[in-house]
């Protein structure tokens, strides 16, 4: 990192008062975790908060989980590179969640069956091997999916505080955040997660709304749209154009990914639905959360757009132009840094502290939910079904806590060594797709088509491995992505096209497998279809 870059990255309004706000907030979160530790005695309490969560707390915790720091970062990156055209994903996410709330699609029947995890449904509907295969697919995809969370979240912290100028800061921030989340999650399980999600919701909603209003005030409403026109042209508004990296295949892929899967199939969201006190409460939770599912994308997209406007049109941001959008050549800095660096300059002290505290809380709530969900799936759906003797509740909670620590070690390793350069959102859609392309089809057909058989479900789940072809290092290895010259690459199939292909294959294989190898009548479990 040269001197000019260090100088540009070190400029931030983040000061002592902001540090105090962040530390006080974190202390409050840890105290809550300690206070509710005594309720985490049973597995239903530890993993599902005793299935006693009311509608409004459910909305807060759903928002707290899904509005994570990594969401803010990858969405800001999309806004920075794609402009307002990225908004189509937010609309699809909101409409998809509203659809789930109105119809109870997938989550309603799941709550009625009273399962703790999705693989548990596979066993009730199909058989134990399908549960174990489904759980393995889920864990592989989920753990890969959260692999870059730690690094991305830490990039926000060092970017917004001005620490990015110190090249070793990112590593130490990653270590610090990881230790904080591990201590906190192992303490209280889902109950502490839900309570701090609520506190996070209150802090973050205030911070998001105030910061957005302030950014509009400082940059100017008309100016924001004019600069996007100038910098990105029509592709900055029209998502059907290929110029901003979207296009029709991307939109259809997002309809499935952000629209339906994100709310009805993704385990961290489904875990919140399964913790609700009734199916009616689940539907209400989803209807209200549709606003959160849209806003969790829209505000960060808008912040990314504001970063673009600040860098390209405001004199105070001119030193950042060569780093993020040079007139010639390639940028020297990852554009993930653009939003936090600009926010560090745009927001005043105190508000910057509140927003940073809210973001760290968002980071913690996403991490603890993901750690808890994946470790619970390993315990409940892989280890417990494979044991000859039933595992006691105490043993399950202990194993879940140990797995959380193991997952923490993996996340640190992956953050340090993964070499792909795709947008974070596309990385997440691809890795998540290993699980959800098959699970979406198997859940949908398993719940709504009585003819779905164990063999069909097995084939549908396994087809998710096709999504590995969407990962950039694998695309390059198998020739799906090839170099045109020293700096340019071409794709034979985009990751969104691979995703759509995988969903199609999963549907075909599930139906064909079910018709060719139906379950014996005794294995039919018709009460578990909607």
């Amino acid at each position: 990192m040269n001197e000019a870059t260090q100088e540009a990255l070190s400029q931030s309004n983040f000061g002592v008062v902001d540090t105090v706000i962040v530390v006080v907030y974190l202390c409050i979160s840890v105290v809550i975790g300690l206070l509710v530790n005594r309720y985490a005695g049973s597995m239903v309490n530890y993993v599902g908060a005793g299935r006693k969560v009311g509608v409004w707390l459910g909305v807060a915790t759903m928002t707290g989980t899904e509005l994570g720091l990594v969401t803010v970062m990858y969405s800001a990156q999309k806004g920075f590179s794609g402009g307002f055209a990225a908004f189509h994903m937010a609309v699809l996410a909101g409409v998809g969640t509203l659809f789930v709330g109105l119809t109870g699609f997938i989550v309603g029947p799941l709550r009625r069956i009273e399962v703790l995890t999705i693989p548990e449904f596979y066993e009730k509907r199909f058989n134990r091997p399908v549960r174990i295969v489904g759980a393995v697919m889920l864990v592989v995809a989920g753990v890969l999916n959260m692999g870059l969370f730690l690094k991305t979240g830490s990039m926000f912290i060092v970017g917004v505080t001005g620490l990015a100028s110190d090249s070793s800061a990112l590593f130490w921030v990653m270590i610090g955040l990881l230790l904080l989340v591990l201590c906190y999650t192992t303490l209280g399980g889902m109950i502490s997660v839900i309570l701090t999600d609520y506190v996070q919701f209150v802090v973050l909603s205030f911070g998001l709304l105030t910061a957005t209003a302030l950014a509009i005030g400082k940059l100017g409403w008309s100016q924001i749209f004019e600069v996007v026109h100038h910098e990105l042209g029509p592709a900055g508004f029209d998502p059907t154009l290929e110029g901003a990296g979207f296009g029709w295949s991307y939109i259809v892929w997002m309809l499935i990914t952000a629209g339906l899967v994100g709310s009805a199939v993704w385990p961290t969201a489904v875990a919140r639905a399964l913790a609700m006190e009734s199916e009616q409460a689940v539907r209400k939770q989803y209807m209200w959360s549709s606003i959160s599912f849209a806003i969790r994308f829209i505000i960060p997209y808008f912040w990314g757009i504001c970063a673009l406007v600040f860098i390209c049109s405001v004199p105070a941001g001119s030193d950042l132009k060569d780093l993020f959008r040079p007139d010639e050549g390639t940028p020297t800095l990852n554009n993930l840094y653009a939003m936090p660096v600009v926010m560090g300059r745009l927001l005043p002290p105190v508000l910057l502290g509140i927003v940073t505290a809210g973001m760290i809380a968002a980071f913690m709530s996403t991490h603890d939910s993901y750690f808890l969900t994946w470790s619970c799936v390993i315990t409940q759906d892989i280890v417990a079904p494979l044991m000859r003797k039933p595992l006691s509740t105490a043993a399950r909670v202990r194993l879940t806590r140990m797995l959380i620590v193991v997952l923490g070690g993996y996340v640190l390793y992956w953050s340090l060594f993964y070499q792909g350069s795709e947008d974070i959102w596309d990385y997440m859609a691809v890795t998540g797709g290993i699980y959800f392309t098959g699970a979406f089809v198997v859940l949908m057909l398993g719940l709504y088509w009585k003819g779905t058989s164990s063999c069909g479900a097995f084939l549908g789940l396994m087809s998710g491995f096709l999504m590995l072809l969407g990962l950039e290092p694998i695309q390059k290895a198998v020739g799906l992505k090839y170099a045109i010259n020293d700096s340019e690459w071409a794709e034979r199939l985009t990751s969104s096209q691979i995703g759509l292909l995988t969903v199609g294959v999963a549907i075909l294989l599930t139906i064909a497998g079910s018709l060719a190898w139906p379950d014996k009548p005794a294995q039919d479990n018709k009460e578990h279809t909607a």
Partner: protein
Amino acid sequence: MTWELLWKVVLVSTIGLFALMSLFVTFLGARDIKRLIRKLEDPTEDPQQDSHHG
């Protein structure tokens, strides 16, 4: 309607709805927390709650 106008409407309306929802969640969510703690403190409820898993 142009794309620009559509995104302006989407931005303003979702932020407005989110602001309104935030007020609901802040006040009614606090009430739900009290109820959750009260239910968790009641040892007579769901004594067999782990029995049907795994």
